[in-house]
């Protein structure tokens, strides 16, 4: 069972984005053996408070050793070349632990109002094309491109570095990228949209789909829609306490109900619940209801119980995030 953790959650957050705070979260999640910690940029309690999570995961590279680090870059207003270049760097700097959450939209359309308006169908088609272009750019340097042949003065082998000559409906990108292939080949691409269009996009372009559903019975239909290839995770909001009654009273104190599928109860109860859910999908993306509290409870109380079952390994098994997710490393699409 794949296990990831998403931020932000309710509760107390620092008044301004703080590396120390994010570092603590990441180290806690790594201690719990989560496959990845995912940042979509939201750092505050609610509302439009967002940072750029890409420099954040770069900053976290040195503070962690094994956990995957995911950051969202919205597809709507980003250039594929810039996305490919950012991840080509971050995947190297994290030694193969990066993930790209290819989100639809930033929720801040008014910051891009100078861009020509786009019909909904075009938005989705453009999104699919931009992921395809990013993958082509990542693949433009084959794995054997960097040869470091000092005696003959050959740093790279130009014969296995390819212009991509992409000419599509929305983008024309010549390439190649000016960076070697990411360590993972392609960092895993995560998506989170379960609309009909989102599922079609995931089927075509995603390595991992995180499904925010209201009812676990929806998972079977989602699996059919996306096919066998992408890993399917279900999003689960989690609020824990020593007893069920205590958990319920904590939930009440929150003031707002937990969104989507949620679990309110004891760490032992959670393990049983996760075991059941994991028969319906490949894993769970946990949303600690109150980050500071519930992430610690998850790691200290629930994870040891999970590790006692066969659901989670005792330690990280893979070196890269792809390996931990059980995803094969893709060959370059330009390789002969």
């Amino acid at each position, binding site marked *: 069972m794949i296990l990831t953790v998403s931020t932000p959650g309710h509760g107390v957050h620092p008044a301004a984005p*703080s590396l120390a705070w994010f570092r603590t979260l990441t180290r806690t999640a790594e201690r719990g053996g989560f496959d990845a910690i995912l940042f979509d940029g939201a750092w505050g309690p609610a509302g439009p408070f967002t940072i750029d999570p890409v420099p954040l995961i*770069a900053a976290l590279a*040195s503070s962690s050793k094994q956990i995957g680090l995911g950051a969202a870059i919205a597809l709507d207003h980003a250039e594929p070349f810039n996305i490919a270049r950012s991840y080509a760097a971050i995947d*190297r700097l994290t030694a193969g632990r990066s993930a790209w959450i290819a989100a639809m939209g930033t929720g801040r359309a008014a*910051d891009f109002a100078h861009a020509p308006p786009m019909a909904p169908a075009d938005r989705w088609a453009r999104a699919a094309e931009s992921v395809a272009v990013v993958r082509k750019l990542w693949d433009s340097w084959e794995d054997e491109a960097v040869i470091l042949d*000092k005696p003959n003065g050959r740093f790279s*082998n130009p014969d296995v*570095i390819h212009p991509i000559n992409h000419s599509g409906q929305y983008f024309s990108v010549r390439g190649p990228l000016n960076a070697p292939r990411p360590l993972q080949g392609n960092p895993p691409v995560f998506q989170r949209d379960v609309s009909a269009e989102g599922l079609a996009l995931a089927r075509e372009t995603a390595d991992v789909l995180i499904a925010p559903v209201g009812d676990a019975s929806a998972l079977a239909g989602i699996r059919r829609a996306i096919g066998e290839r992408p890993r399917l995770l279900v999003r689960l909001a989690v609020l824990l306490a020593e007893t069920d009654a205590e958990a319920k009273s904590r939930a009440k104190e929150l003031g707002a109900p937990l969104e989507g599928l949620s679990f309110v109860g004891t760490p032992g109860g959670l393990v049983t619940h996760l075991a059941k859910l994991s028969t319906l999908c490949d894993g769970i993306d946990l949303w600690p209801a109150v980050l500071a509290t519930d992430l610690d409870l998850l790691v200290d109380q629930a994870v040891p119980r999970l590790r006692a079952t066969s659901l989670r390994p005792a330690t990280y098994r893979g070196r890269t995030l792809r390996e931990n997710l059980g995803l094969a490393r893709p060959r370059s699409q330009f390789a002969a």
Partner: protein
Amino acid sequence: MTRQLHLGVFIYPGGHHIAAWRHPKMQAERITELDYYIESAQHAERGKFDLFFVGDALNAREREGKVVGEIAINNLDPVSVVSAVGSVTTHLGLVATLSTTYNEPASIAAKFATLDHLSGGRAGWNVVTTLDEKAALNFSRAKAMEKSLRYQRAQSFVDCCKALWDSWEDGATAADSLRIKAPMYRSQYFSVDGPLGMPRPPQGWPVLVQAGGSEPGRDFAASIGEAIFTAQGKLSDAQAFRADIHARMVKRGRSPDGIKIMPGLSPILGDTEEASKRREEEFAELAHPSVGVWMLTEMTKFRLYDHPLDQQLPTKDIRAFNPALGMNALSLLERAERAPMTIRDAARIMVRSRVHQSFVGTPDQLADHMAQWLHEGGSDGFNILPPLFPGELGLFVDQVVPALQKRGVFRRDYTGPTLRDHLGLPRPPGRPSTRT
């Protein structure tokens, strides 16, 4: 206190010598790894440098449609690199290059605000407009934007970012909705409502750096620049450049104190002058002749790849082919016309040449040279381009920094935590507080 030098280090995969990756001391497989950058950043911080700088390119370097295999890669994505080294340093400024031609202001304002928050006020942005025509082809454009338009867009881009950075009053938090105001920025290029998604960056704005000596580039520097990276080979030229920038600032109502001019400087050090010259020779010998031929062809646009290396440089053909040769090309051709020069000779000259000033000598000679430029108004500091990382940077820190400190022209320790503190730049005031 006498005026103080400001020092930056310009990181590069391998080093600034074009053949650095072949140097016996270079572990070339490290140049895409985190530790390579961390080690260099830690040297710089130990040496009390003002900043760590990463340049950018948005296309691969090519010869006849193929990547040039004899040279190392460009820098990795600059923001990612500086952000990664920011988390293992505490004072070093972090300057990343980003193009205003191929990005969106709302995204870039958020990127640098994030970096400034995470690093505790150490972010700087080298604002570039991306010169290379080939970059346009990677961004769905048939050709690059015309230069004056690129700079107009850049000015508007930066104005928009400033409006976003100022959208939160200083000290306002997410709970103070009345102290957060959407700037509703409008120009012919951008329509951005805002506000920024986070509190005002610790430095107000990241330090704005400019690099590029053209007319519109100088005006842009005088308008928005707080530091300038520039290529200056001669003290008299550097003095004229600095005076020109200052005059342009005064015309705009800015004080010349508000900018730090830092020419690039590539040091090759030795215990004696002879030793340093030997080391220069050692570096030059590392370059494959085909690299020099590629550089010659790039410079003249005249294709030399099929010419035998030991043939004379065909100066007449080159002049006939390209009547609009630049200054460096013309001076090389004149030299070849005065005395016989083969293509191999010309290629050797090319790999020794630098856009930036190089200095070959002892640490004391270099310290004197730098102090002279400072005292005689040639610069406010230098952006150091070591030929090889991290070793040659370590050498500079161990040998030149103490010599500068002894001369009283460089700090012995940091006096504040932010990049603005190091550079002696004021923090932009932001919007007046409406707190009651």
